[in-house]
């Protein structure tokens, strides 16, 4: 036991709730439960906050992506009520290429690279509401994402005309297209205004029930919007992943008008929410990893106990306790686990059916049919669009190559956000995919559209300055490609689990499932109920700190 001495023993040893993993949903739960007066122990096997939502330096990121099934040694004391836990990796097909190691070495301390990118938040997102409600907003500073573009295989990036002013200034749309698009936005706004006063029966319904149930893409056609604009709305504003035009093949992914309007509403309200924000999207300074940390800090203020580098090695079923890597046993009736924690195969075989039922959220599941998310990270010198640092680029389905099934989203972030050194940008890419190859093909295709092709290794050192023809495109310094498994959080009574990062741009689905889990765990207690001192601030639009 002497090698475990670095861990001081925990005191107290009994908690209302133990949470393992410090991802966004776990952190929200920890902050929520602590705020409502529960005693919470929040553990993370990693030496950093955020789990799969963390922002890391390049070496840390590389080692995290490559850490395969980091299973702690099986427990020594094999009494049959102890169930061994293993950490498995959510990542596959990890592929990391370094093109300029010296440059990276030189700036090694200045990278804060997201594991779950590309990710940004809408100003009107539920995650922002929660931050304001909980008070964790005081720990994070945001900056606006300057621009959104829709791209295609030609490499041309078209502005997403997402507001009145943007439509006015847009140079790519014809006057008639501007007119049609603005009319559509107005229709949506009128609809939203009328539906917010729904109790008024005299209010004229702008959109019929029938329309609301129809596929969104059909509704857009009915509004006589040209294909170009439809594509902008579907993928550049509503942020859809799946091809909406090919409704027969993928009918499970077809968005209804009602949902489409909700997504537009989120976008529209985001634009006008904070007076000092430029657009709908914003990004936290120092990376997405700041968000889980902010909730954790809030939780710590409210009395939550934090221990990092502390894996849970086993569950002790009869004692309602867990055994930590330090060997200490901690007691709690409720346990929330990170999505990567599973029951070790050895232990699994010896469980009774009833025990399996109790532990169901930790039983490894068949993952063959599941959707995955292919992600890419490029550290580039230069920018994909001149004079713009922070930008979102969306490649709608079929825009890169005919077989492209899902949209590829690309988020470029600059040194202004303190995520990379000056003159460089971090470029995040992702696409939802059925298998690793399909996803990586799409991501690579987007990379090759935006970035200068790699030069052979032997020419690498002196080619950069000479290659005049493609000098406007940025050059890649470092690249990572990986495919991440999607795990949904589950409520399982005593033992529950949280979600892995999903394929969306924002955290809405993750926050939603975290809020639901909180309700199930804590009864009907409202999340961050008593934290009202910040809501008044929110009305004035200054609740979230956004740097100009």
């Amino acid at each position, binding site marked *: 036991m002497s090698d475990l001495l670095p861990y001081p023993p925990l005191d107290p040893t009994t908690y209302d709730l133990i949470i393992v993993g410090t991802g966004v949903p776990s952190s929200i739960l920890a902050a929520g439960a602590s705020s409502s007066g529960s005693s919470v122990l929040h553990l993370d096997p990693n030496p950093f906050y955020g789990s799969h939502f963390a922002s890391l330096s390049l070496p840390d990121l590389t080692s995290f992506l490559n850490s395969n099934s980091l299973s702690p040694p099986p427990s020594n004391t094999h009494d049959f009520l102890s169930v061994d836990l293993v950490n498995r990796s959510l990542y596959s097909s990890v592929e990391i290429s370094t093109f300029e190691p010296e440059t990276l070495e030189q700036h090694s301390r200045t990278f804060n690279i997201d594991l779950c990118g590309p990710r940004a938040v809408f100003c009107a997102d539920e995650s922002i509401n929660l931050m304001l409600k909980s008070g964790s907003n005081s720990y994070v500073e945001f900056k606006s994402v300057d621009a959104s573009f829709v791209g295609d295989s030609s490499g041309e990036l078209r502005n997403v005309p997402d507001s009145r002013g943007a439509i006015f200034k847009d140079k790519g749309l014809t*006057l008639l297209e501007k007119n049609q698009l*603005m009319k559509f936005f107005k229709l949506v706004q009128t609809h939203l205004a009328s539906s917010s006063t729904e109790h008024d029966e005299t209010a004229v319904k702008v959109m019929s029930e029938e329309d609301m149930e129809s596929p969104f893409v059909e509704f857009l056609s009915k509004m006589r919007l040209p294909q170009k604009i439809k594509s902008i709305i579907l993928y550049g504003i509503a942020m859809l992943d799946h091809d909406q035009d090919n409704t027969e093949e993928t009918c499970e992914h077809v968005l209804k008008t009602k949902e489409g309007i909700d997504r537009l509403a989120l976008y529209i309200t985001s634009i006008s929410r904070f007076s000092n924000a430029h657009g709908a999207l914003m990004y936290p300074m120092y990376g997405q990893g700041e968000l889980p940390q902010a909730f954790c800090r809030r939780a710590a203020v409210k009395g939550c106990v934090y221990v990092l580098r502390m894996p849970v090695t086993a569950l002790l079923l009869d004692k309602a306790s867990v055994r930590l890597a330090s060997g200490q046993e901690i007691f709690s009736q409720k346990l929330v686990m990170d999505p990567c924690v599973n029951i070790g195969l050895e232990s699994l075989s010896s469980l009774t059916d009833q025990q399996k039922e109790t532990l169901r959220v930790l039983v490894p599941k068949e993952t063959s049919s599941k959707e995955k998310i292919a992600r890419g990270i490029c550290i580039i010198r230069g920018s994909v669009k001149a004079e713009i640092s922070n930008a979102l680029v969306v490649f709608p389905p079929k825009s890169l190559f005919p077989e492209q099934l899902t949209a590829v989203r690309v988020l470029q972030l600059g040194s202004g956000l303190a995520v990379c050194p000056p003159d460089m940008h971090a470029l995040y890419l992702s696409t939802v995919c059925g298998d690793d190859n399909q996803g990586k093909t799409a991501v690579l295709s987007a990379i090759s559209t935006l970035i200068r092709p790699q030069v052979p290794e032997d020419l690498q050192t002196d080619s950069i300055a000479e290659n005049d023809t493609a000098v406007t495109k940025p050059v890649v310094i470092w690249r990572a490609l990986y495919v991440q498994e999607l795990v949904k959080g589950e409520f399982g009574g005593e033992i529950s689990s949280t979600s892995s990062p999903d394929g969306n741009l924002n955290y809405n689905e993750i926050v939603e499932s975290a809020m639901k889990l909180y309700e199930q765990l804590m009864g009907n207690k409202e999340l961050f109920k008593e934290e009202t001192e910040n809501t008044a601030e929110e009305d004035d639009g200054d609740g979230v700190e956004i740097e100009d």
Partner: protein
Amino acid sequence: MELEIINQTPIKPAAFSINCTKQPLSLSLSLSLSLSLSLESRCYVTLADQKFESHTLAYLTFVSYHRRNMHGRPRKAYKPEEEAASAAKAAKLRGLQSQFMANHHNKIYTKEAVDLSTKLLEINPEAYTAWNYRKLAVEDKLSGIESDPDLVKTILDEELRVVESALKQNFKSYGAWHHRKWVLSKGNSSVGNELRLLDNFQKLDTRNFHAWNYRRFVVELTKRSEQDELEYTDDMIGSDFSNYSAWHNRSVLLSSLLARKADGFLPNKKIPDEYKLVQNAIFTDEDDQSGWFYHLWLLDQTVNVETPLLTSSWPSHSSRISLYAGCSKGSFSKLTTFGSESGSFPLVLYFDQAVGGVSSSTVTIDSELKGNEDLVWEPVSKKNSQVSCVWVARLKYISSEPCFGKEYKVKVRVGNSPGIVSSRGCNFSASYEFVFTAHVHDTVEESSQDGIVSWKDGFDIWDAESKDLNALATLDRSNAQMDSKWRQEAIAEEIDLFRELPDSKIGKLTLARLLMAKAMISDDAVKGVHYNEILELYKDLMALDSSHYQYYKDEHSVALLRKVTSSTEDLSGHLFRCRNMNNSVCLRLNNLSLSRIASVEKLLFVQMLDLSHNELHSTEGLEAMQLLSCLNLSHNRIRSFSSLDSLRHLKQLRVLDVSHNHIGEHSVDTTRYLCSSPLSNSEWPQDEVGSQMPSLVTKYWDAYFVLRDLNLKQLDITGNVIAGDEFSSFVLQVAPKLVWLDGKKLEI
């Protein structure tokens, strides 16, 4: 002591204005606020800018608008504790105010006293008296220190600081902005600061008109270039294209830059660019007014030329006119025949905009007709106005020397020497010369012609060849307007574009205006098609938008008249000869539901005009038709004789039919005037009739003014409320030469 001061000084308004800013809007509140302001401004008018008073009305509407809805920002309700705080503030202010007023009255300008006013103004920037007090205090200090630049700077900087903090309290305070101007006019400030301050205020509310006004002031003071300011409007419009203030400032700046032909600001290059800019605003949000206003301004810039032009004349260029002594009988084949008892004929000049300075020196006449050396040019316009579109001079053709049976060439040169200036101050530059021939006949017929003129029969269809009508054609505008190509192109592009804009009222209206503009500046051949489209558009608009019906109706009338006068073919369909009237030229525009008169410049030759069965409210425009002798206005919507005022200029008018109108139906609302009728104003010269029957003149003063100046032989007034025995007897007095009244021959 304190009570005394309260009674003397306007303390209440000051405290009141605090309440106003804190309480929810009620119109009466803001009304009394601005009233109190205007009272104060009058009290201290010696120091206050004169403009201040004229602003108060604008302020009234502005306040009520802003209190209700600050550019779309919802107003918050006030909580009880806030109201209590406001009451406490008012009480504190009252104390401050009374102390301050004591200082003011005793002319105490010590540091403590001035600091007190600072405190007062920082709480209530609306206290105009305090600003004036500070002005006095500054003057006092400045006079004491002579000319030590450092000290002057310190004093003025302090004033600027106080203004700035007052503006932070209320950036719509007139007093504060004015005080700042006053300080700057003292000549000491760093101007960079002013623009920075403005940027802040304009960020706060981009349409803050105080800031825009002040900006123009600072720009003028610092001689900042108009190009820089234009770029600033670029930015402001870019960030919010609904910013009407920015568009407006842009139009002002561009007007100036275009007028002085600044580098890169040629109309043919710049205006098409501006169309592109405003198109983006209009097409992005067609419900936003700002862009449309700017578009209208651009259209005006495209169509109208600054320099005044001669549009038409009578007699027209290369025409032949026949002149007779007296009202001659007999049949004439020539179109342009004129006879008059006075032995002179009118020479009419019609300009495209009101001009002044038409005189025998600016317009020279070269002819053998004697006695026309010093012609008197009169503007055909309202009394006392020295500018007009229409100018008339009377040329004598019967002088002491017999000159019958001769042809005289008359050469008229307009703008020979400079002096003809438009009301906007532009010179008539392109001098223009025209020549006509006057044939003076010697057949002197008996001058009295007492037969009744009937509008029903005795008319022959116009059979003259169109050649005759060509002589009537107006001067070709495009002669003078050398750079019309880009204008035509710009308008043609706009027309194509707005045809595509899906149905919206303003879109239709703009298309109609554009088509009208195109018709005005393009060749004759294509006009007809446009007019039909314009007429259809206005018909649609009348049906779509009933609240602006009359406007569309008027525009429809204008378009219809333009169409009628656009070609000789169109016009000849409406032209007749009146057999009973020496085959006079009669234009019949009856039953066209006209509500407004237009295109008069093309109808200067008309001697008989039938406008019956229309919807006219007024005869405005007809004053240019100097040859008109018979006018039929029956079955229209004339409501009073005042609406016929323009007829007073028609010296040839003998026959007038205003039967079946609405004259007398609505009495003129004299409560609007300070006196019951203009006659009670002693300045009006009394004549015989006025002194004979003062009561009737007072009752029918509007008829009196018109009929007195006319020389009518025949009048029809039946079918009006005013008609009756009393009125008839009055008419006989006022118009002694009348022979026919309501179809009956008068016994003389």
